[in-house]
């Protein structure tokens, strides 16, 4: 009996998958649109990467002297990308600008007060950050001069020498750098579009079949009702897996995305996610009354889940409460698992809770759908 | 009236309509019959102005449909085969739109809407969205939208497809009423019994040509189709044979003591002569069954195929 049921379910799944795969709209949203979104979202979020060095425009008066060069060298060591501007217009075009006045070196050598002027277009916090870094550079010049350096060579030599009192800096803990660029957009778009296709094509096809009497016909065939439900689910899950496989391959080949050292864990998470997405799509198709309703709710729900779940931007850049809330969503749970094993180097065991949650949710949702499946 | 003269419509090398000519008069229901691909739809398309003829002329109420298209369309009412109604709108809203498109304004529009709703039996459901209507109700509303502006010429393209018998009867009555009011009606249908009962004149179209036209009786006689007359009673077979033999083009198929079966042309006209001859021969006729050749059989004979091929 169970063998027949599984055979029937497999047959139906195969037929449905063929049917779904021939829907041009489903193909477009499975293969074409994701590539466009991969690229666009990746280009946008990759733009947030920022330069390793912050540009700092420096205007040096003609008679500032050799100390200006020393200051500039030490600013470069503090991760500033120093641009010595030639004209006032060029200088004013930068949001971060430092003016070294004339007679700087002479005043400093004569121990007379001299003031550099930092102008920051922005907010106080940003200005404070810049101020500390520039003070460090200036302080190193001051202290080297206090130690007796008065020529460029002496300053350079002393600058290289370690201080008696110093601080050893080491990185601690794991580097958790939220993925940006294609490392974010490819998995995020993949997760979003899997849900979107399940919620639209996957759900609406069920609604259409009910309207056309196909489900009623299936219910009165020799197939058990369980076989019909499982078969329908199987086709949708398979479609989701095809989409995921395409996204992973395209992501690697076209966008250079690496899926981390634990591919098996990644695939397990995505398979569980695909199962849940297929079940939720069936739920929508089952309980929705009209095609317009199903598509409408599907589009809204998938966008909401994608946005809140960290598919569009790394969840790590959002407020803590949003990050916590995301873990209650299928998209958020999946993205968190992917970030852990792909981006943050966590071991496969770190995503066992995610797997369990996704599978449990799929089973519960599946049970609800199976119990209330409407054949007409 | 509709005047079609040597209408020709070709699509490249394919000639869809080839020299079709007929005239449909006011107050008349003119049927257009033909199998699929005969050129029926193309002919209707040319008359309604949807398609431009390759050659020939079509006039509606004297207006050339190509040169005076607007004037021709003003006289025309079309009940298309598809139910061209906005399902989100109610019956009244649909009538307001289609009536308005035909140039009607209030208060005339309002009066006509009330009238056609009453005619089609939709007054009670006038404010409901059309999507809640049954198929028959939608067809009736479709018809109402075609006649709301009291057209002088009415084109009906299979208006009763998929309709329940009650609604169909109602629609046919409405069509007759329009013709009786003086409207020139051009009617296409696949249902033989509709054409037989409804149409005053018919044209049979095949391969783009009119292969026969006229009243049903004319078509029957044209094809020399014979009626079958079955008489029951008390007969002397030999006397009965001899009595009916002088009647023109009659053939005795069966002559027995209680049954006489005759094959003849225009039997209904010849019945009195047959009864008189048999009475004179001492036969007693107690029951009469007259079976006339059907339009279907005529059609098959003319075109060599069934109407629904």
């Amino acid at each position: 009996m169970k063998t027949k049921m599984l055979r029937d379910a497999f047959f139906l799944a195969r037929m449905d998958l063929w049917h779904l795969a021939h829907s041009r709209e489903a193909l477009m949203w499975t293969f074409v649109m994701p590539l466009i979104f991969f690229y666009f979202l990746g280009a946008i979020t990759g733009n947030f990467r920022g330069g390793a060095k912050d540009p700092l425009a420096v205007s040096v008066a003609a008679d500032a002297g050799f100390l200006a060069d020393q200051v500039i060298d030490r600013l470069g060591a503090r991760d500033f990308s120093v641009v010595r501007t030639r004209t006032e217009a060029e200088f004013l075009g930068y949001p971060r600008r430092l003016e070294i006045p004339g007679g700087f070196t002479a005043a400093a050598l004569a121990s007379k007060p001299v003031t550099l002027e930092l102008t920051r277009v922005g907010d106080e916090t940003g200005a404070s950050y810049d101020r500390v870094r520039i003070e460090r550079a200036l302080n190193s010049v001051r202290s080297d001069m206090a130690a007796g350096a008065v020529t460029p060579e002496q300053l350079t030599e002393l600058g290289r020498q370690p201080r008696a009192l110093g601080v050893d800096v080491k990185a601690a803990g794991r580097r958790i750098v939220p993925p940006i660029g294609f490392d974010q957009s490819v998995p995020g778009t993949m997760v979003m579009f899997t849900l979107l296709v399940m919620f639209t094509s996957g759900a609406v096809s069920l609604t259409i079949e009910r309207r056309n009497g196909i489900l009623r016909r299936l219910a009165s065939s020799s197939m058990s009702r369980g076989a019909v439900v499982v078969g329908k689910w199987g086709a949708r899950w398979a479609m989701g897996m095809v989409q995921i496989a395409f996204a992973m391959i395209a992501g690697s080949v076209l966008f250079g995305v690496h899926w981390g050292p634990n591919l098996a864990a990644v695939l397990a998470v995505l398979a569980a996610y695909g199962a849940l997405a297929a079940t939720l799509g069936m739920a929508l198709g089952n309980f929705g009354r009209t095609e317009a309703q199903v598509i409408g709710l599907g589009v809204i729900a998938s966008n909401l889940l994608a946005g809140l779940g960290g598919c569009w931007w790394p969840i790590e850049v959002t407020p803590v409460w949003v990050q916590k809330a995301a873990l209650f969503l299928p998209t958020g749970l999946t993205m968190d698992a992917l970030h852990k094993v792909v981006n943050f180097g966590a071991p496969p065991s770190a995503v066992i809770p995610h797997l369990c949650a996704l599978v449990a949710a799929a089973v519960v949702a599946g049970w609800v759908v199976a119990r209330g499946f409407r054949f007409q | 009236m509709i005047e079609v003269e040597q209408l020709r419509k070709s699509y490249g090398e394919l000639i869809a309509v080839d020299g079709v000519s007929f005239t449909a008069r006011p107050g008349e229901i003119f049927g257009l019959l033909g199998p699929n691909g005969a050129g029926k739809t193309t002919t209707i398309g040319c008359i309604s102005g949807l398609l431009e003829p390759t050659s020939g002329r079509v006039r509606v109420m004297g207006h050339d449909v190509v040169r005076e298209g607007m004037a021709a369309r003003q006289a025309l009412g079309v009940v298309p085969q598809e139910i061209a109604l906005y399902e989100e709108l109610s019956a009244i809203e649909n009538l307001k739109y289609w009536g308005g498109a035909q140039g009607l304004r209030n208060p005339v529009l309002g009066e006509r809407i009330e009238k056609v709703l009453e005619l089609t039996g939709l007054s009670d459901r006038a404010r409901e969205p059309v999507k809640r209507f049954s198929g028959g109700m939608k067809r009736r509303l479709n018809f109402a939208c075609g006649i709301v502006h009291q057209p002088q010429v009415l084109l009906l393209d299979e208006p009763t497809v998929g309709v329940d018998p009650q609604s169909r009867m109602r629609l046919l009555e409405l069509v007759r009423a329009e013709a009786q009011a003086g409207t020139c009606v051009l009617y296409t249908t696949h249902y033989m019994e509709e054409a037989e009962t409804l149409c005053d004149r018919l044209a049979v179209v095949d391969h783009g040509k009119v292969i026969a036209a006229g009243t049903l009786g004319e078509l029957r006689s044209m094809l020399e189709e014979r009626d079958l007359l079955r008489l029951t009673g008390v007969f002397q077979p030999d006397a009965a044979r001899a009595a009916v033999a002088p009647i023109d083009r009659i053939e005795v198929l069966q002559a027995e003591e209680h049954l006489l079966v005759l094959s003849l042309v225009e039997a209904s006209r010849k019945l009195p002569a047959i009864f008189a001859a048999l009475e004179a021969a001492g036969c007693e006729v107690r029951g009469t069954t007259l079976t006339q050749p059907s339009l279907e059989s005529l059609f098959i004979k003319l075109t060599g195929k069934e109407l629904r091929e």
Partner: protein
Amino acid sequence: MHFIWISVVKDLRRWRRDPFTLAVWLAIPLVLAVLLNVVFGGGGKPAPRGVLLIADEDNTFASKVVSGVFHRDPLDKMLALERVRREEGRRRMDSGEASALLIIPAGFAQAVNRGGAFRLQLFTNPSQSILPKVIEDTVSITLDMLGTRRGGPPIGLKTTVIPEKKQGKSFAALFFPSMLCMAVWMIANALAGEIWKERALGALRRLAVMPVRMAGFLAGKLLAAALVFACVAGTGLVAVRWLGGVPVASLPAAILWLMLAGVAFYLLLLLVSMSASTPRGASMLGNLVMFPLALVGGCFFPFEVMPAWMAAVGRWTPPGWAVTQFSAILDGSAHAASLAAALAGLVAASALAFMVTLMRLRRSFAL
């Protein structure tokens, strides 16, 4: 004129009774706007503070000088200080709970007094870049002050902060023009696809045999669509102005622009839809045109956050052009002359699209 009017009424009635079609496409930008605001729009909240763990194993005046520096402005605003033991500090750093751990080993003060060498230890959070550097620099400056190289010429640093005006748009002001343009663009696509429903109904064919002009039918649809766009624009602008505090320099101009842009979008997308041969093909083609142009055209994310080349390309797309002008109208930077030119261009493009669409409608689409 009467036929145009009844066509407008007909379409408005139909769209009102089929809310899902419009609601779906309106919902996407709404969902996006709400999400973006909830997730990122925390205007007015205090800037996040880092955590500095200090394991002072020396516990002397000198060590307190080092740790005390972080109690002063502006560092006290940037960092929250916590005193910990070394082991606890290491554990918390390993789990990424703080920006840095500063360990001042025992013997620091002695080294300072004798002028000898001594090293403090600073463990930084590798996921953060700014605060650990600030902490490192501050500690280094303080150590220089305590060390043998104290003193030196009085080189000062004066800081002037100029608040950003142009880029100081609130989050809502930055994203709102994009969101509203996206709504109009998507609604235009949905409305354009509706022509296939009328074709399937047979309504177009019915109209073709009536004494009306297709131009009147198309004009009626345009006017109805324009009213929808005006409603969406008006509602969105009023809501964001009163609830979100987004400045709107000229409400009538903004509504007018968006309404006309919507009409142009509608005509363009109608033409795209009608060039397909089936309704499903039309839907696919519409989405294939709509989504990429919406992405590149600044409807999802504003041009300000895009790579420069993408923004340059995007500004030349229909939605991008509309967004750019719309933003200028909102923030009052649009000049009358440039706006008039833009409006003229919009009207001209719409007129051309109208004629081409009408031709297609008359020649084959309606039949």
